């Protein structure tokens, strides 16, 4: 379909991009074949790593001229196959854009290149007593550009919001190669809120080259309460009770017994191994406020029937309590050759019902599942354990995962809270939205990218597929792109 051969394209790119950063050999390209969801793999025509904004701009103009699909990529930590290459397209890596351009301590902002790691922002701001609030669990690796593309969350969303709440301004290159600025150093702008549209747009509307984020003062004090419960329902109800007290915790996380055991074996955080559910409740603010609120919440947990209640006694212990939670995914991963992480969001009141149903499905599909839950904001991460080497097991896992997402929609929730749709949840989009709504999404896409060459095939399903998706209850369909394999394993 392209009117240019790959070697010709490569030559044209090498005119203005360092030769070693135009990658066409399969071996070097291999690391780009998938993102954090390695079940979806594809090899692109080329991988390009520009080093300047001008190079990105020239490259995009070239791709536009030949209608070549472009998949922008940050650190590749996406869990929804949002950065999976397109087999007729180019991977545009922003990995060279790692500069923290400016930190303005007085205005409390940071200007960043898109490849800056999430955690690096807070590390750089710390000397001014400031930090960047959104903290996805992948924060040591994930990049701010990818955070914007996915509207990343984290364990502190309930109080401090998602990426969209913490970005002031972006510079973006359109599919035609025009550099524009969206947002400002002020808090609002006259006109349509394009900034809100770009956050979470999964690389389908433009390529981001600079981001200005808000920084917040580091709270004076933070304490974590670790509370064990003998039932998931009691723990879930306790979350509602905390909020009813008028207290908004900095973070409020829940894990079920499977996740507790896995995380404890991994992190030795002192989690109660006999508990059916664990709540981690962080209270932050001024010294006085935190002491008062911590006592109130700890007493409340005890009153509601917590089987154990511990309060972090030092910063080191607070970090240790969190380490268990933040490493829950890899910890669960040690129990099984592979795991598959879901990302549904539900009204909190539905928690007990949804977990019961997940357990029933777990038995039906004969696949183990561990649950990690951003309890404060209703974002559930069931981790399905499977072995991709067993024929048919991944397909069963995917089907099980799809059922969980459909369950989330049925109880009034949605299919993704923070991981994005990517390729992974494209079928479930047809569960959450009807054809007219999906058509409206497509027309928004055309407003930015009329030729649909930016990250094609992700995020929004083709309308003709929606009916198929809705009627398909089996996972053995042919719509899934790419191959199935374990991390690190080669595919032909």
């Amino acid at each position, binding site marked *: 379909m392209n009117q240019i051969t790959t070697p010709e394209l490569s030559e044209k790119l090498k005119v203005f991009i360092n030769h070693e950063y135009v990658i066409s050999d399969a071996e070097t390209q291999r690391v780009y074949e998938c993102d954090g969801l390695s079940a979806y793999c594809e090899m692109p025509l080329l991988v390009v790593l520009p080093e300047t904004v001008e190079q990105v701009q020239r490259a995009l103009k070239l791709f536009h001229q030949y209608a070549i699909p472009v998949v922008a990529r940050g650190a590749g930590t996406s869990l929804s196959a949002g950065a999976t290459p397109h087999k007729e397209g180019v991977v545009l890596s922003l990995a060279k854009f790692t500069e923290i351009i400016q930190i303005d*301590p*007085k*205005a*409390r902002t940071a200007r960043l290149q898109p490849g800056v790691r999430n955690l690096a922002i807070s590390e750089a701001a710390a000397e001014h*007593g400031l930090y960047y609030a959104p903290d996805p669990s992948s924060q040591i690796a994930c990049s701010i550009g990818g955070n914007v593309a996915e509207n990343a*969350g984290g364990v502190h*969303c309930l109080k401090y*919001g*998602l990426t969209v709440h913490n970005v002031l301004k972006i510079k973006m290159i*359109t599919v035609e190669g*025009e550099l*524009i600025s*969206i947002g*400002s*150093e*002020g*808090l*609002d*702008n006259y*006109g*349509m*809120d394009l900034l*809100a549209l770009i956050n*979470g747009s999964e690389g389908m*509307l433009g390529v981001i080259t600079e981001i200005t984020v808000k920084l917040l*003062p*580091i709270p004076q004090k933070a304490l974590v309460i670790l509370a064990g419960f003998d039932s998931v329902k009691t723990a879930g109800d306790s979350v509602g009770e905390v*909020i*009813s007290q*008028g207290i*908004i915790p900095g973070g409020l996380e829940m894990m079920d017994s499977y996740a507790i055991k896995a995380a404890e074996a991994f992190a030795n955080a002192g989690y109660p191994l006999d508990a059916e559910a664990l709540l981690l409740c962080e209270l932050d603010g*001024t010294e*006085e*406020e935190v002491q*008062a*609120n911590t006592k109130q919440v700890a007493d409340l947990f005890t009153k509601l029937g917590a089987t154990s209640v511990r309060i972090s006694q030092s910063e080191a212990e607070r970090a240790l309590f969190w380490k268990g939670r933040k490493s829950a995914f890899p910890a669960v991963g040690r129990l099984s050759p592979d795991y598959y992480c879901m990302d549904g*969001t539900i*009204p909190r*009141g539905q928690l007990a019902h949804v977990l019961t149903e997940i357990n029933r499905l777990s038995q039906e599909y004969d696949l183990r599942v561990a649950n990690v839950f*951003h309890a*404060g*904001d209703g974002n559930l991460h069931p981790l399905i354990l499977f072995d991709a080497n067993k024929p048919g097991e991944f397909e069963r896992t995917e089907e099980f995962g799809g059922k969980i997402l459909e369950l989330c929609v049925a109880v009034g*929730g*949605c299919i*993704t*809270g*923070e991981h994005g749709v990517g390729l992974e949840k494209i079928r479930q*989009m047809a569960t959450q*939205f*009807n054809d007219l*709504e*999906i058509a*409206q*999404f497509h*027309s*928004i*896409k*055309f*407003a*930015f990218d009329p030729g649909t060459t930016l990250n094609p095939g992700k995020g929004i399903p083709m309308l003709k597929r929606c009916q198929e998706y809705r009627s398909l209850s089996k996972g053995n369909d042919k719509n899934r792109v790419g191959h199935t394999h374990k991390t690190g394993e080669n595919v032909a």
Partner: protein
Amino acid sequence: MNTTPKTSLADFTANDDAKNLISLVKQAYENKTPISIEGNGTKRHLGHSINSEHTVISTREHSGILNYEPVELVMTARAGTTLAEIDAALGANQQTLACDPARFNGQATIGGSLATNQAGPSRPWTGSLRDHVLGVNLINGKGEHLRFGGKVMKNVAGYDVSRLQAGAMGTLGLMTEISFKILPFASATMTVKQAISQADAINAMNQLAGKPTPLSAASWVSGDLYLQFSGAQIAVNKILETVTSDNHNAEILSLEQASDFWAKLRDKQLDFFNNLSSDESLWRFSINPTASDDFSKSIDEKAWLADWGGALRWLKGDFEQEKLSQWAQTHGGEVTLFAKNRSHNEISFTGAGQITLPPINPVVQRIQRNIKNSFDPHHILNVGRLYHWI
């Protein structure tokens, strides 16, 4: 200050007018006749005025709270529900909107509040409705009734159509239902006032915002810096102690004085906004909160008002547009002509004359026009309200 009566949910006027609204928009689409969407008409002064010959479609008959479970921290209401009704329902449960939009005597509707994204003085700390909207149902310009977002705190499925409505002034759809985040009341809120120059106030507000305190609003009005602190009583007491011992002329306002002041500032009912003399214009700057330099100091302090910790500035007087635009750009933002006095008795709010500077980038203009076309291909919804070209 507006006081809301004690009301239970059952007392609210609950009307479902969705079918009628859909049929009106469909008709307008088929006949290509432009329509003007209005709730209670409290924000006619925002944006450009709409050709008076365009048929007005009111959302007032489409009202009522549809879903409110305090423990979920989420409410869903029909677009024509007034903020007075919403405040009353929330107040009965010691809860509040997560942000503080203009109330206009309680008559502002939730639909209009989101469409214009009006935010009060606490904006830097609590955000605006744009930040707290979770989902919307809307009728697009083809008369299709669509549902985006959800009733849960996090949802990244599809483009964020709900937030896109904030500030779009009804040009992309007629919203019928809105779900939004709510919060518990802060257990204590106190305000301290101190006479200080504007330059010193800008400095003080930014310094304080960079420190971990329960600061929840900071504004400089008529020579006084107002700082509001909200949170646990013990934390608020502590910071008040620090502020008043560091500044001997600082005065703690009574709760009534404080809430009256903040509500008037939020709803632009202070004298500053309403006493425009002949030939005076009112300009609104949305800029870097630290902006303070020779230009700002060269203008009489009485002409200025600073809100949002410095990120929102109001200026009234007779100024050269070009100079104001340059100043806004130097400080990373924009300036809008908000109101103009055309006679001694009548203040004309923007109307046909609204100017936003610097001028819009042609690529951004093209994208906005394409988005308009995608929602409203026949250009029937609030034509000319946001820009004269859509």
